[in-house]
């Protein structure tokens, strides 16, 4: 069984949607995430996950003397990593299937799937 990292990107479109959501719609959206995560947990394939802080982190860039450190990525950029999940799946096909009913997509966000390269 392989592990996959699901990187959840929050897009601008998603941000605008949330601004216009009613409290009721927001609660419904939270409920959908819970239901999705719950189905992973009940199948034993939920291996963790975390929210990343929204405040800009740091980006280090190579430079000739010492590395340059800048703030970023900024909220103003089109996409921002909101957080990630770790899941177990047989292969990419299955991982994609698992993600297909993640509310992130329905809400206009984006998911990047990366298989963890495990030591043999």
């Amino acid at each position, binding site marked *: 069984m392989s592990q996959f990292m699901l990187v959840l990107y929050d897009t601008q479109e998603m941000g605008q949607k949330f601004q216009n959501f009613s409290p009721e719609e927001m609660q419904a959206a939270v409920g959908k995430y819970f239901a999705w995560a719950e189905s992973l947990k009940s199948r034993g394939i939920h291996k963790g996950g975390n*929210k990343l802080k929204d405040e800009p982190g740091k980006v280090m860039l190579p430079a000739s003397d010492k590395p340059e450190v800048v703030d970023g990525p900024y909220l103003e950029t089109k996409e921002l990593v909101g957080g990630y999940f770790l899941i177990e799946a047989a292969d990419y096909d299955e991982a994609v299937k698992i993600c297909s009913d993640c509310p992130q997509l329905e809400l206009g966000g984006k998911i990047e799937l990366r298989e963890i390269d495990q030591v043999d």
Partner: protein
Amino acid sequence: MQPNATNPDRMGNSEQSVPTIVEHLFRHESGRLVSNLARSIGLARLDLAEEAVQDALIQALRRWPFHGIPQNPTGWLAQVARNRVIDILRRQTNFEKKKEDFAHARMPELPRETDLGDDELADDQLAMIFACCHPLIPRDARIALTLKSVGGFSVEEIAKAFFAAPTAIAQRLVRAKKRIKEKGISLSLPDIEEKTGRLDTVLRVLYLIFNEGYTAHSGDRLIRRDLCAEAIRLTSLLSTRAETNGPKTQALLALLLLQAARFPGREDESGELLLLDDQDRNRWDRELIRRGLFHLGESACGDDLSEYHLQAGLASLHVTAPSVDAVDWKAVLWHYDRLLAISHSPVVALNRVVALSRIEGPAAGLQALAQIENSKALQNYYLLPSTKGDLLRRLGQPAEAAEEFKRALATGCSTPEMRFLQRRLQECSADG
């Protein structure tokens, strides 16, 4: 891939993590927090309070999927909203300081503890209801403002419920907020001298909110059901405080509960509305009836027999009767007589005719109907020809009755009403 039922860790995990949020929590907390924050920073900054609460809910939406529900979700939301208010104020203050060079930019005191008592929150909400229904707020904006600021409904939802364009609702809200600033309307409960008048406007707004949800002409059905629940919730809230309770508050609460009790029997399997005669009385909500009758009893003090008293009285006569024929029509007529004396409404007069005909027969009903037939307000009201048709049918004049049912069909009524009329029309043709 199958869940491993013998793994105690996993079992514990899944038991703990069946995450459910109390129904309507976000909506209700939104209303409570906006009221609470606006009371802290001043009603003139209602927009800011709303923005902060919206941000807190967005935070919840973005973080809870990863973290799960916090131990104390309402406290969490309150804290995040409060921090957000402070952030925004700080930024605004800096900005204004630079621009206007204020010597002292004031930062209002905000309550520090995360967990506000329910009492305090209830007070804030009551104060907000009174502000939203303030006589200086334009009449057509009171309902929208109450639903938005106290109820946590969005502009879209309000527009859906009232079958209006969202921009129209948004404009009403803008005008209302402008008025709040201009007139310096503040968040406080009315004092004794002004209590009666202001309580009347509040009760009226809640009555209208309920009616909008209860009557069936248009709009989204789910939202309309929510409007009724919200009107009941806020009227209950009014009944918990000496300043806002009274015979009229109790009477309105009784009325709303008794009407809501009939919801379960009002629709057939396909979700279409049923008329009173066709409803299955066994499906009416006994608990709501019990509560409604209790509050009707409570309302019977003082010497004010308000419209709400009479309407609640009428509702109680219907919900306590085992069948339409068992309704105490004499008592119904008594109520309509009193109601007519207060409201002079042709619609009430028409309902009175129905009660009268149940007691004295269809001929007496037709006679009474003749006196109100020409009322302008009833000209496009399907119940006028429909009632007349019914009386004629009972008098054994199916051809004349059919004419009336056809006329009723032409006035444009809802689908279930049309089906009812068509059924009657067929009966007449069969008889004739």
